[in-house]
Each structure stands twice: as C-alpha cells, then as structure tokens.
C-alpha cells in the first residue's frame, strides 16, 4: 500500500501492457545509447559482472570425510539455474570456513565419546571472481558411522548481489535457522533410532560372546587362560565398553534440550505436538512394561521389527563403507519439511533487493496501522508468521506421520529399560535408569534428577564455549544465543551446592571437569589456518555482527528450577536417589584423571557473571539516530527497519561507502534507488512473504482495473459505488468477462472485517438482501431462462441497494458521483501502464483515504458534544466542516470517508472473536443510467 512508484519502475513484469500503449520510438537525436550489456529484457541497472548463474539459488553442500567438500543439491533443482557456475569449487569455498568439523569423538580425559550440540554458524562469503555472494549456514548432523559421529553440512543462499545478502542477512538467518532446526530435529530422531539398533546389536553380541566365554571356561580346566580365552575376554570387554558408550550417546541425544527450542522464537518447525506426545508416551510407557526383570527376551518381543546382528570386533575401515545420504540422515517427514522451507526461502528472496526492502518496509509500517490496515490490505499478507501456520497445517494433515513418529518414540523407552541390565553387567548398582532418561526428555518435570540436567548442561556448556570461541576467530556473523547459555551454566553450577553427600558431589564435579576438557579441545581445534585470508578481509565489519544475545532469555530459562521452593520442597530421599544415579552414570568416568580436581567452573562463575562475554561488542552507529529520525521510533518498527540499520553498518564498514552516503539513507526513496543499482536477479520479483499467487493476482487485478478505467467512461461512479459501500453487480452472460471485471474492480473494495474481501466472482441464482449484506461486489450471470427473469426481477426490486454494471450492453446504473477522489484514483488518461504500478497507485490513494477516515473517526468532538449543553446540530455542523474544510472532501467524497469511518468504528468496537451482525447501510439516492 505504501508505495513508491519510482521504485516500481525497476520491477519487471512479464505480461506487459497492451501494445496499444507502447509509445512510438524516440527520434534518433534524443535516444540514449543503449546499455552495452543489455541483452534481451535486461535492465540497465542490472549488474552483469560475470556471475555465471541466472538467478539466486540455494546450495546444500557437505564436507564429506571421504571425498571432501561436495555439492549435494540445489534449490530450485534446475541445471539452468546454476548454469556454468562451478558448484564443486564453490562448495569447497563455503565448506572451508566451517569450523565445526572439529569434533572430538573421545576427548582426552573422557572414557567415552561426547556429543556436541553445536549451534549453527552463519557466515557471509563473497567470491568476486565468480560474481557470487553467499549467505552460508553451517550445521552438523549426527551419523553413527561418521568420524566423530558428525557430518558437517552447509546450506548456502547464493546470489550475485552482495547487497541483497547483507541487507537481508537477518531474514535469511531467521529463515535458514528454521530449516536447519527442522533438519536437525529429524536427524536427532534418526540418530536415536540408529543408536537403539546399534545397542541391540551390541547387546546381542555381548550375550553371544559371554556364552562362548563361559563355555570356554567350563571346557578349560587347565588353570590358566588360553590366548583364545583372553582374546574373547578382551573382545567381551570392548563390547561392553562400546555398549556403555553408545548408551551414553543415546542418553545425550535424547537429553537435547527441547525446551530451548520452545522458548526461542523461531522454531515454528518443531512439531511440538508430536514431541509432546512422544514425551507423554515416554513417560507412560516404562511403568507398563516391568522394569524389574528386563530380560532380553522380554525386550525383543516388544521390538519385533529389528533383529540384532552380531557385530564384528573390528569395524570396517572408514573408506570401505558408504556414508549415508542426507536423506537417510534425517527423518523423512522432517526432510521434506526442510525442503519445503528451503523452497519457501527461495521464493521469498527471489527478486531484486530493492523490491524486497520496499516490501519489508511497507509491511512494517502497515503492521503499525492496526486500526485501519484491514480496510484495503490483504490481512493474511500482514500476518506475522504466515509460513508457520502453513506448516502447522501440514502437520495437522500429516496426522499419520505424527502417529508413526509417536509410535517410534514410544518404542524407545523399552530399549532404555535394558540399560539397567547393561549397567549391571558392568557391576554398578542396578538402578532404574529408564526414569532418568525419560525425564531427560522433559526437563521441566525432572526436578528429582539433577544429574541429568547437569549432564545436559555440560553439553550445553561445551556447545556454547565452542561457538563463542569460534566466533572470535572467524567471520561468524551470527551464532545463535551464544551468550545465553552461560547463565545457564551458572545457575546450573549453583545447584549442587545444595547440601548433598560428599561422594556424589565429587563425582558431579568430575563429570563437569571432563566436559570442560572437551571444551578446551574443541576450541583449540579451531585453527586460524582454516580461514582463507581473503574471506576474512572481504567483510571486516561483519565480524561483529552477532545478533543480540538475549540475556533475559537465558536468565529466565532456568528460573523454575532455581526456585528455592521447588528445591526445598524436595525430600531428601529424592535427592539421594538422584545422586546415586549420578554415581551410576558416572561410574565409567572413574578413570578420569581429573576426578579429584576441584570444581573449576565454580571458580569461573563470577567472571562469567560479569556479562563480558555475554554481550557481543556492538559497533558504534552514529547513523542510527538519523535513520530513526526518518521513522517513528516505535518498538514494533525495529524489525522492519532493520534492513536500514544493517545496511548502514555494512556500508560504513565496506569499501563502497561512497555509493550511498548515510545522508541518503534519510531519504528512503533515494536510498532505495541507490540500493537498487545492483540487480542480481533476472527473474520477476515476487512479493516478500506474500505468496506468489497473491502477487500475480494483484498484478492481474491492477492490469484489468487499468483496462476498465480506459474502456469505460463511467468508471468513476462505479468505483464510487464500491468505495461508498453500495454493492456493485456486474451483470453479464460471459463468465470469463464478468470475472475479469470483478477481479479488476475488487481492488477498490474495502474489507468489512478481517475476513476475505466481500467479493463474489460469479453467482447464477437470484440475489437476496442477505447477499448485499455479505458481498459488496458480485458477478452475476445473465440468463435467458425463467430463472434469469427471476434474477432480473430481484435486481429491479432491490435496485436501491445496488449499482448495476451491465457488461453486455455496457451500461451502468448507479448514483451520481461528483467528487474528486475517484478522479485521481482512476484517471483514464493516466500514464501508468503496468498493472502492479497501478495497483500501488491505487493503494497509495486508498491509504490517504484511510488516514482521512481514521482522523474523522477518532476525533472526539466531531461525534460527541464538547459540553453537555451543546446541541446536536452544532456537532453535525462541526463534523461537516471538518470533512469539507479540514479534509478537503467534496460532495460524494464525504460519503466515502463516512462509510470507511463506519467500517473502522465497527471494526474497533467489535469484540474479538465475536462476529457481530453484519449490517447494511444504504442511502435513498436516485440512480442514473450511464451509457458508453
């Protein structure tokens, strides 16, 4: 709605205007030399500097441990898109910045591998030679067969326009995070399944080996062990160690803090319902099966789907095996969701950056106009999170899929029961481990199992440390919530201080130090050499671009557990129990040399609390004041204006500051046009966020409206009818023609509420009063049948409520219009030629009308007397004077504003969720017949 026609000129449109309106060529002497690079349809602003791909695309690459960086897939999946662009080479470039491949399977000091829940990293890369710039989103997926159990991947949004990447960084980051979260969730699920299978295999192997050893023992009466027996014993030991390791991995993957996802804003993907249900299933299941006798037979009858295999002592060499594909690494449902999201991203960011920016700004501004924006705006377009809803819907539909997952999930605890038996085999105190694990899935409920949390937090600690340290070394633009986790560790650290037996405590400490070690390793692994020097230099300013670490979030996260009431409320028994569990869980860690060390983290705590690390350094931005001056500094706005802020920062840091100075930023249009000077994309620009269909519809409607205005001399009274709330009937025999007219005119119809536009494209039956209440623009069939007579009879009967546009005989019957607003809105001599341009023109004039209606509606004294004694007439006079003099409305224009004001009132008064009766307002005014 808020539009700048001069910007629109840069947008391209496929279905251009009629040839009729094409101007004759300029005389030779006036013509401007053609832009040298102008190919067919290229605009002179397009930056053609050698990019080898035709439009933006998304690339997914992997750093394969076997063959190195390799491209996996592109979106759109079209060879033409990437063209001659060397995907392999570019994959190498983008993967070479990855720092997270540095996973340590067995951190020194730890007996068994640990998983890192590594935060994604977001980097902007540029390759001027290739003319490609990319937003790169690194993530790691778990794979049991992979080295260190992780497979590094990255998703990259590749564009020829570096401004686009920079200015849309925040949006890209948000959207890609969604995709990444989805992918990782699916991966965790798949990984857990894989682990369960592996555990079953191992357990089976152990049983077999155990039996063999027993037999050998019996057979052997010599008093000494044969080498064979020793070998077997070793093998058994290694299998048992392996079991413990895998068990631990399983617990780690299950203990992934889901709550984190729920709290943070951008995880619409997380099928919460599915997870919740899975949790519920996990909680309910263990009591059902008997944990007291966790016999394998009992176990396996429960899981008939998988027959365990004997595992060879030595696993295959890593180059022998075939690594899983991305699809195999992830749950199918989540994989498709991820692809959907990536397609959505591709669609969303298609087109020129200036277009995206205008769209974003106008959307941000429109969102503020909460009182009036429903009138002429597509409200779904303004909706905060339309794609999420869409996905929610998908999930709702995919009920089967969810059920399937639930059943998968519910299988898990059964396996977990056997953990007890694993434990007992390593001679630990037999404890009901299942409780622990089950709680780990639902951390909020697990007050009694502190050890679990501690472990979780250890992992978190590790992650966070890792990401922070990496952030220091590389041009990482955004690592999510890098600071927030620290508080967690503090709050965590304070937990064990609550009186507890010494033994348990020391063990807790030991585990914590172990995790600390792993962090050390992780951070040292990040070597500077990994980062190519030119990458580093290309965006020096970008280093500081860590998005705001949300301190509050982190602080709040653990408050429920820190609540002393909760802790105090616990009886000692449960604490004891939890500590014993710690004992059990940590029994493998006894070899750890750091066992007796004091708790280093407790010592670290104070300095972390200073918040030095938590808040990433922010560049000083003098321009911001000025920028904010241009717009009302409103909280709700910040999201929308963000592109400006980002841009100013980038511009100050980047080399081409000269291109658009900060002063220019003040003037939005001039700024946008300068930003528009690079057009990476030669594809038509769709709306940002709004679905492409809606955009096409608008374009078509604009084009049709333009045609209508030029064709029909009585367009003004027709449009006036629509704007003043008088139902307009488009009568005709030909459905296509009528629908076209209705589409054209629909852009002038004010919405009555937040529902769809009150437009009915095609009706064949006779109309009733109720229809006029509901619809303000109706396409009606003219039929020769008796029914058709009825239809016409109804029209003449209700003629006072209607304006009738006869598409066949080209006549219009409606009240007279003598105002000026519509003349500006629909000038048949307009120079505007494009549908979308005209649409914007209409929207801008309608916005003016809206603001007038807003003023009119919300001026107290125009409607209510100033004093008690003031007669009604003087209020009426004041009202009319305001409309005429202040708002400058003439004649029928007053009625338009009055109608809009009435709609505003109704909308404002209306109780939310209460539909309210639709009312029909009308006037007793004579109609006239217009002919061409």
């Amino acid at each position, binding site marked *: 709605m808020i539009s700048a026609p001069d910007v629109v000129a840069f947008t391209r449109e496929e279905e251009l205007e009629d040839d009729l309106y094409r101007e004759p060529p300029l005389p030779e002497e006036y013509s401007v030399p053609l832009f040298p690079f102008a190919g067919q349809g290229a605009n002179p602003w397009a930056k053609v500097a050698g990019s080898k791909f035709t439009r933006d695309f998304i690339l997914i690459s992997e750093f394969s441990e076997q063959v190195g960086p390799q491209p996996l897939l592109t979106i759109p999946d079209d060879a033409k898109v990437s063209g001659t662009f060397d995907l392999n080479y570019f994959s190498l470039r983008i993967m070479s910045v990855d720092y997270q491949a540095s996973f340590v399977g067995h951190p020194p000091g730890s007996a068994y591998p640990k998983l890192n829940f590594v935060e994604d990293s977001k980097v902007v890369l540029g390759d001027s030679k290739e003319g490609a710039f990319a937003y790169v989103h690194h993530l790691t997926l778990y794979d049991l067969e992979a080295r260190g159990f992780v497979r590094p991947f990255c998703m990259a949004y590749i564009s020829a326009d570096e401004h686009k990447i920079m200015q849309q960084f925040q949006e890209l980051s948000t959207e890609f995070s969604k995709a990444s979260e989805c992918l990782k969730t699916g991966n965790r699920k798949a990984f857990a399944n894989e682990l369960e299978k592996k555990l079953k295999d191992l357990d089976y192997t152990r049983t077999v080996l155990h039996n063999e050893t027993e037999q050998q023992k019996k057979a052997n009466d010599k008093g000494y062990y044969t080498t064979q027996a020793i070998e077997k014993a070793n093998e058994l030991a290694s299998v048992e160690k392996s079991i413990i390791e895998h068990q631990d991995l399983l617990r780690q993957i299950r203990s992934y803090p889901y709550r984190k996802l729920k709290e943070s804003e951008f995880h619409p993907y997380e099928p919460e319902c599915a997870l919740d249900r899975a949790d519920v299933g996990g909680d309910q299941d263990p009591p059902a099966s008997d944990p007291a006798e966790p016999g394998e037979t009992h176990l396996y009858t429960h899981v008939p789907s998988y027959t365990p295999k004997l595992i060879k002592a030595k696993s295959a060499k890593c180059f022998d095996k075939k690594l899983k594909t991305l699809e195999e690494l992830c749950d199918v449902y989540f994989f498709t969701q991820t692809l959907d999201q990536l397609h959505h991203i591709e669609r969303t960011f298609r087109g020129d950056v200036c277009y995206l920016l205008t769209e974003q700004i106008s959307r941000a501004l429109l969102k503020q106009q909460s009182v009036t924006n429903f009138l002429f705006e597509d409200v779904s377009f303004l909706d905060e999170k339309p794609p999420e809803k869409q996905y929610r819907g998908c999930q709702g539909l995919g009920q089967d899929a969810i059920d399937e997952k639930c059943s998968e999930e519910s299988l898990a605890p059964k396996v977990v029961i056997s953990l007890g038996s694993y434990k007992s085999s390593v001679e630990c105190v037999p404890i009901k481990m299942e409780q622990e694990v089950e709680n780990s899935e639902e951390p909020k409920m697990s007050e009694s199992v502190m050890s679990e949390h501690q472990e979780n937090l250890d992992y978190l600690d590790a992650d966070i440390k890792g990401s922070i340290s990496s952030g220091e070394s590389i041009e990482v633009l955004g690592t999510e919530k890098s600071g927030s986790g620290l508080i967690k560790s503090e709050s965590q650290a304070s937990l064990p201080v609550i009186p507890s037996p010494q033994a348990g405590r020391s063990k807790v400490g030991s585990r914590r130090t172990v995790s600390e070690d792993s962090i050390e390793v992780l951070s040292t692994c990040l070597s500077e050499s990994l980062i190519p020097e030119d990458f580093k230099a290309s965006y020096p300013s970008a280093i500081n671009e860590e998005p705001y670490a949300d301190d509050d979030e982190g602080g709040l996260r653990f408050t429920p557990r820190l609540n002393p009431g909760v802790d105090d409320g616990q009886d000692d028994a449960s604490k004891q129990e939890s500590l014993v569990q710690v004992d059990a869980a940590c029994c493998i860690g006894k070899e750890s040399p750091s066992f007796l060390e004091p708790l280093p983290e407790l010592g670290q705590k104070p300095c972390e609390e200073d918040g030095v690390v938590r808040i990433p350094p922010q560049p000083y931005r003098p321009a911001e004041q000025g920028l904010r001056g241009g717009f009302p500094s409103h909280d709700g706005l910040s999201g929308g204006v963000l592109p400006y802020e980002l841009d100013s920062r980038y511009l100050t840091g980047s080399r081409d500051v000269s291109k658009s100075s900060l002063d220019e930023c003040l003037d939005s249009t001039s700024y946008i046009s300068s930003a528009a000077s690079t057009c990476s994309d030669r594809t038509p620009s769709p709306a940002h966020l709004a679905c492409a269909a809606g955009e096409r519809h608008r374009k078509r409607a604009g084009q049709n409206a333009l045609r209508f205005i030029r064709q029909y001399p009585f367009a003004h009274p027709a449009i006036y009818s629509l704007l003043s709330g008088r139902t307009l009937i488009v009568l005709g025999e030909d459905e296509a023609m009528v629908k076209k007219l209705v589409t054209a005119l629909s852009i002038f119809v004010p919405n009555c509420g937040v529902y769809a536009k009150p437009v009915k494209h095609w009706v064949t039956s006779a109309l009733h009063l109720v229809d006029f209440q509901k619809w303000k623009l109706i396409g009606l069939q003219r039929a020769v049948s008796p029914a058709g007579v009825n239809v016409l009879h109804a029209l003449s009967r209700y003629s006072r409520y209607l304006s009738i546009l006869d598409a066949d005989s080209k006549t219009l019957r409606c009240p007279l219009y003598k105002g000026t607003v519509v003349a500006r809105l629909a000038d048949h001599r307009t120079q505007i030629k494009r549908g979308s341009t005209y649409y914007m023109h209409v929207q801008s004039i309608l916005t003016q009308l809206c603001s007038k209606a807003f003023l009119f509606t919300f001026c107290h004294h125009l409607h209510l007397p100033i004093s008690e004694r003031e007669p009604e007439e003087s209020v009426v006079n004041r009202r009319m004077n305001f409309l005429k003099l202040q708002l400058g409305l003439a004649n029928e224009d007053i009625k338009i504003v009055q109608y809009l004001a009435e709609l505003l009132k109704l909308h404002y008064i209306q109780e939310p969720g209460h539909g309210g*009766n639709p009312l029909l307002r009308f006037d007793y005014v004579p109609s006239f017949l217009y002919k061409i």
Partner: protein
Amino acid sequence: MLRWLIGGGREPQGLAEKSSVQTIGEEQIQNPYTELLVLKGHQDIVRFLVQIDDCRFASAGDDGIIFLWNAQTGEKLYELHGHTHKITAIAPFSSSDITEEKMDLIITASADRTVIVWDCSSGRQVQKASCFHSTVKCLTVLQRLNVWLSGGSDLCVWNRKLDLLCKTSHLTDAGISALVELPKNCVAAAVGKELIIFRLSASNNGSEGWNVLEVKRLVDHQDNISSLVSVNDLTFVTGSHVGELIVWDALDWTKQASECNFWDSSVHPDVQPEIKLSQSPNEISVQHLTSDEECVFAAVGKGIYVYNLQMKRVIACQRTAHDSSVLHIEKLPNRQLISCSEDGSVRIWELREKQQLPAEPVPTGFFNMWGFGRANKQANQAAKKMQENTPMYFLELVGDLIGHSSAVQMFLYFGELGLATCSADHLIILWKDGERESSLRSLTLFKKLAQNGDLQLRL
C-alpha cells in the same frame, strides 16, 4: 420528488390496476431507515412479533420456534423450543405483582394444542398446558384481573399459574378468531359472523374463582369478522370479510356507526364500475384495524382507509396502497402510519391536511380520497359540502422499505430503536436510523478508547 400515480380508474382505458399503486422514487428524504440488520433463525414463515420490553421482542411463526431478540443490537437472546406445530397466537404477560419482582413472561399457543408460558429473562419454559380440545387461536391478557384468556372452540380463563379458572361450553368448531377486552370485566369474542360478549364475574366460593357468562350476541355482520380492536374505553370496532366496519359502544354494545362501502366504488364518481365487478371478496376484506383517539385506520384489501370517529366517515384513503393485500397497519405517534403487505414491502404514510381547497376542475384521480361515507348522495354535493365545513386529508407516501422477498406478515415499531419486520421469507429485518446508529457507534468507540486508556481529550 413525489409522484402520484393513483387512480387507475381515471385512465381512459380503465385498465392498469398495476399502475394504480402509488410509488415513491429512490429519493426519500423523510425516510429515516438507512441501515438494516437481517436476523436469521426461523426456518419457516414468521408471523408474529411481540414486544417484551423497551429493547426486547419475540418472534414466532410456522416453525414452532420462538426467538427472543435484542432490538438494539439484533442479537439473538434465546431460542425457545417446545411447540411441535406452528404458533397460532402469542401474547406478552408482564406480571407486575408488588410482592414479586417483575417477571416478563410470554404465552404462546400452537397448533399442537398446547399453550406454553415462557420466562423471557431465563429463556426457559415456565409451564405448559395441553388440555385443549382445539387449537387456541387467540390469547388475551387481562392485566387488571391478572388472568389471561385463550380462545379456541371455547373460551378459557386462566390465572398466572396456568390454572384453569373457568371455561365456556363449546361454542363453535371454527373457534374464536379474535378477543378484545372491554370495560366492566367484559370481553368481546369474534366467532364467525357473530360477536359474543362475555362477562367475567368472581365466583362465590373460591378466592380466585371466576365465572364466565355469555351476555350478548351481536349478529350485525354479514360475513365473518376478521378484525376486532378496542379504540378506547367507550368504543370498539370490528371489521368483516366483506368490508363492513362497525363501531360499537363498549358499554352497552350497541352499534354506533357502520361503514360498509369501502369497496363500493360506485359511490365514487370517478371509479368505473368494471373495477367493482372485478373485486374479489379478498380485496375488500378488512384485514387489520388500528386506531388512535380520533380515527380508526383500516387495512382493507390493498388499500388503507382512515375513518374518523367523530365525523363518522372516511376522511382519507389510499385505495391501492400496496400491490397486494395489506396485512398489518400501525399508527405512529407522529401522524405517520406504517403498513405492510403481501407484496413484501413496508410503506410509511403521513396523514396530511390538504393545504388548499381544490377548485372545481380538480383532476379527480389526483384527489380521490374524499367523498367516502356519502353513499347515497351525489358526488358533487358531497364535494361541495366538504369544501364548506371539513378539512381535507390525504395520505402521503413518505417512504418505503424494501427488503423482504416475500409477504411481510407483521412489524413492530420500536420508536427510535427502529422497526422490526417479519416475513414469509423466514427473515426478520431490523430497520434502523443510520444517523443515530452511527453516532451511537461513535459513542461506544470513545467509551472503549477511554477504557483502553487511549483517549486524550484536549479542549
């Protein structure tokens, strides 16, 4: 702005019954109803609207459901289910006992031979009587005596608790079609062609016992009595299917005046006899009567007639006020008259005194409202006489409301809240003054703003 197209009779060809209906253009300055609300709920013809209090009304019809509505917002308050057949009569019964708090009740009678008393504040059925031998066709509440009467094939008297106090013997199979309260504990019941006067007298034994006695039978009507209305304490009026209108003395039940020539166009000089012949009984039937202190307003066929009680003659009429039978008329306080008809329209009329006496060559079709009640006299004489001593009146059409797609059965005037109309198209429409509604909405808006703390007044 106003065009008169009356008097089909004066057309040379004598045809064009259709064009004889007065119409009004699209510009209706005096018509205040510029906003409407459609109330949906009924599934069959809506026949009755009854006012409960200042802002509530009930509707009932052939679907046997009673709806309670808010007249201001159009909100549906209650949906009362209980009858299995169509509703035949409905009456409000607000008890104003000093001991109890005010209770708004409505009584409904249905073709399923039951009568139900409903509580309007809770929307619940209070009591139900199903001991009837025939359908109750009319209900009358005698507030003064705190009893109500039901009229079917016999007349029953009930108290508020739905105890049958007394009843008459079986009167007729056709049943009582109308009841009206008269002074001195009397009621008049229209039974076919007869008008029967009953008197309620306190019985000797019980404290709350009543006896009902037939006092008099009046057999002056030639055909079935179709309408019965009480004008004041001294007078009541009846109308029959053949267009007779009789004014009765309410105390001694004697005939004060009668008018039976509404339909007789021969009395009128300019109406041609063909039309008279073509008239069917339906077109001269007195459908509905209403009155104020001075006049009785009669809906006769398609026309509306104003009968002055003092002058004992019709002072103004609109022979073809609607395209089809007029079903209901109501006098408004402001000299306006509203009529609704089978043609689906509602029209607003104003009774106006003619400013200027017409000279001799007045186009008769234009002012054809005078001269009634002069059956046996020469038209010229009548005209001259009237010019001499009586003011001239005419009914001017000031607005029409078109919204229903079928016969408008009834309407209810709510003063400034508007007008509710019910129709055979299953709808009820609330017609409202758009200006007033708009300012009310503004008021609500600023109240809400103030509530939200967004209102800042700077004088």
